[in-house]
């Protein structure tokens, strides 16, 4: 079965990023396909590569990146939500005249259309948030 996952909450806030990750991992383990994980609102903060969590704590963005790499899963940040919150890939940083970008590997910036498309392509769309 094909799943789309929507994450609306930032990492280390309540539990949405963790629940979404464990759900995604379990779905892949069961042989399902994840069409896309779409990060919206504060969820875009999952995509930073500059987080330095304590060594004995989980690294949420690195964990997403690894899941995406191992299973060929698309991790998409909503562009409007990302720009507002200073989540920039190299292209967006250049375009906005910023001195740095902060996107973790495996994440891409795209539009809300990708969420709609995930809803169309997937058999199930599941939402995690606050």
């Amino acid at each position, binding site marked *: *079965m094909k*799943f789309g996952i929507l994450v*609306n909450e930032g990492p280390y806030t*309540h*539990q*949405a990023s963790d*629940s979404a990750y*464990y*759900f995604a*991992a*379990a*779905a892949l*383990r*069961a042989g*399902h396909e994840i069409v896309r994980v779409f990060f919206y609102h504060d969820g875009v903060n999952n995509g930073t590569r500059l987080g330095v969590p304590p060594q004995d704590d989980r690294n949420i963005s690195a964990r997403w990146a690894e899941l995406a790499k191992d299973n060929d899963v698309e991790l998409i940040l909503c562009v409007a939500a990302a720009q507002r919150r200073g989540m920039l890939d190299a292209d967006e940083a250049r375009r906005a005249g910023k001195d740095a970008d902060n996107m973790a590997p495996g994440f891409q910036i795209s539009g809300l259309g990708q969420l709609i498309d995930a809803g169309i392509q997937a058999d*199930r*769309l*599941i*939402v*995690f*948030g*606050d």
Partner: protein
Amino acid sequence: MPVLHIVNKSPYDRNSLDTCLRLARADAAILLIEDGIYAAQKNAAASDKVQHALGKHPIYALQPDLQARGINPDNMIEGISLVDYDGFVKLTTEYDKLQSWL
């Protein structure tokens, strides 16, 4: 078109469980995750309405979230089924639509 309603907030924090129970159709099931699992406790202020809802809908609770909050399964309302993340995924395949009450 059976719906799986996913409730992630404590009934002592928000009224999302009440809204969910009011709107859920007869063929729907309810899954309690994150702080939503506080609704699964017996002998608590919300126990009666959850007990009543069990007569209408299957109710599930996510075991890792129960454990994370130190709630003993013995203190759960009888009839609520525990699932792990594999069981969570399985439930989402068994219902046509997933409604998260954020």
